[in-house]
């Protein structure tokens, strides 16, 4: 279904980087209370189909706005910039070097004496650069400096992916 509203409009909040996550969650629950297909269980098939599509859209909007990375990508998409591809790569050499080092550190975790301590320190360093990148994005986006914002999103993708991998490895090690 095509709706004329963008995701921010659905939640009746301004198009901006800053999002109040608890307010977002309350509004999300309120919207699903109204539009979830279960609310249309005794309606006609065509209304039910429409409810499934609407609830899907609300879920997609919520999923996008609550994640910093997806929200940043979506803000650029609204400016007709496609930052959703996994493949776009930053040209910041120092950043790439740093990434390589972090990945090497992650690869060594398995064989280290205290893997969990190492994972924790890795996580906090990636976490802090991730939030720094988010601050950068906010400043660049507000200044309408979309070229740099696009580059920052590429960096955010690295960080988000690395955090995922740290989580996965930790789960794996705990399971052993």
């Amino acid at each position, binding site marked *: 279904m095509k709706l004329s509203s963008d995701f921010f409009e659905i939640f009746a909040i301004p198009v901006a980087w800053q999002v109040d996550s608890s307010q977002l969650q309350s509004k999300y629950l309120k919207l699903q209370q109204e539009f979830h297909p279960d609310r249309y269980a005794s309606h006609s098939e*065509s209304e039910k189909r429409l409810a499934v599509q609407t609830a899907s859209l609300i879920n997609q909007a919520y999923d996008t706005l609550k994640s910093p990375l997806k929200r940043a990508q979506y803000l650029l998409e609204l400016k007709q910039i496609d930052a959703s591809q996994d493949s776009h790569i930053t040209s910041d050499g120092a950043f790439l070097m740093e990434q390589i080092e972090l990945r090497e550190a992650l690869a060594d975790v398995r064989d280290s004496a205290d893997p969990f301590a190492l994972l924790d320190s890795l996580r906090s360093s990636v976490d802090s650069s991730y939030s720094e990148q988010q601050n950068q994005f906010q400043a660049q986006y507000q200044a309408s400096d979309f070229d740099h914002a696009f580059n920052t999103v590429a960096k955010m993708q690295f960080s988000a992916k690395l955090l995922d991998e740290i989580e996965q490895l930790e789960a794996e090690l705990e399971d052993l």
Partner: protein
Amino acid sequence: MALLQISEPGQSPQPHQRKHAVGIDLGTTNSLVATVRSGMAEVLADEQGRDLLPSVVHYIKEGVSCVGYEAAEHNISDPLNTLASVKRLMGRGVADIKTFGSQLPYEFAGDDGGMPKIKTVSGMVSPIQVSAEILRKLAGRAEMAFGSALDGAVITVPAYFDEAQRQATKDAATLAGIKVLRLLNEPTAAAIAYGLDEAEQSSKHQQRIIAIYDLGGGTFDISILRLSKGVFEVLATGGDSALGGDDFDRAIADWLRQQMGMGEDLNPIEQRILLEAAKSAKEQLTDSPEVELQVLDWQGTLTRELMHNLIDGLIAKTVRACKKSLRDAGVAQDQVNDVILVGGSTRTPRVGEKVAEFFGTQPLCNLDPDQVVAMGAALQAEVLVGNKSGDDMLLLDVIPLSLGIETMGGLIEKIIHRNTTIPVAKAQEFTTFKDGQTAMAIHILQGERELASDCRSLARFELRGIPPMVAGAAKIRVSYQVDADGLLSVTARELTSNVESRIEVKPSYGLGEEEITSMLQDSFSHARDDMQARALREQQVEADRMIEDLLAALYKDGDSLLDIEERQCLRVAVEELRELREATTEHRLLARQIESVAKASEEFAARRMDASIKTALAGQTLDEIEKG
């Protein structure tokens, strides 16, 4: 001529009638049906006062001879025609059956990789047909209790059930002539049964985190839910589909075998004797600290402590799965407010102890763990059928396993990740890689592994009718829609020419639409008129709903969202539908008219949805929303 009924637009012409809805727990070993009476969920018993219905169907040459306790009696005398535990076969393929089929005594006949059928004296039987017999029996029990027909049912499925297994369950209900209001995950049903939504409203907590620990005979299931403002949100679900209380029995039986100095090769009778002894010892140790055993010519003692040594490793495995789900949910274990125990195997006290230890809170277990799922399903059915008002609880489920498509080299590309809230829609764009290519094949799978061959195959789609162009010029948009039951539908469109591609769906394990129709016809062949009458009734209900929906919509939004001509068009369409509904006895004709009215009102519906989304939150102050 019938007198015209005139009612306020948006209101039903009939006075409010109480509808008859049930919750059905379609279990591997036993099934139950429950309903809500005076606000309380209760399990409906059979004429002998028995709550459970063994999930067993016995076949004779002429067809089904009996279902339930009676059928279970044929277990030993006629094992090949006494079908039990078919839930484990639902939505499965021949390869799956090979891995655990040896535990089942039946003869299977797999047809071209689809869901295997079981050879019986009355011919080939699909697990879906067997499940339909069980559902029919339960529906009959309910109709007897109500003294009238059933309006709908909520049927529970394990949270880990994949799309094929869910579809198979829904197909079984269709075969049994039951209208499915919703497929509900078993753990979510349990949370509803405990009335935690009401506990939430009366407590000071902004939200509650609930863990549902479900240990059955052969499976373990853990779900983490968040309850906030009457909405149950499934945050994560996980478990182990090959771990259950039967493994406790096996561990104890194995200990017995060693004590008795027997080798590992036992004959089936010895095996059965040891398992029975183990099971009975396990149950006795619930109340006493030790139990004297006499098995064959061996005598000995099993203490509770020793039993704990035997089963603690198994329980630890379930605790590891709990940890993983908490991680998936992004919740720490001390944030969990309530833990609920479900499933017969949680009767072993050691399980409760270990679960309490892990979560640091005493689990709730005051409802019968065998009944709690059916009771929760009944409460949800009551809401969905319309007996309770709209501002009641809402359930937001997640998809338990990732959906993806097969890419080059037999790899899988994930389209919808596991634990994503449903309903959910995703779209992908493809292009052609040969000049003049007019068709492409898409293979949809479900699972977490990297290789397509390690995941469950759900369906193969063939897109045809792509306009011939040079390679890479066509843009084909494929949309995947997963509904609130976790069922998938797919559409495809070529974007440059806007040609809707034809899709051929070949479910890998389920039944094709034609197969269902023919099975339905078979089951009604002795009563063709019945089937006609039922089909007509169904279409009449659908027509009434549509007329009611549309009149209400026209009254509310017709002036603001439609121009005069569009309004007139829809009014005429509604009137024609109303006339046909009164006049015709031909269900196909009515169905066609409904479809055409649906098409005519599509645009209006989309505009209304768009407008209502825009106004849903716009008129409210922030304060209202937070209180709401």
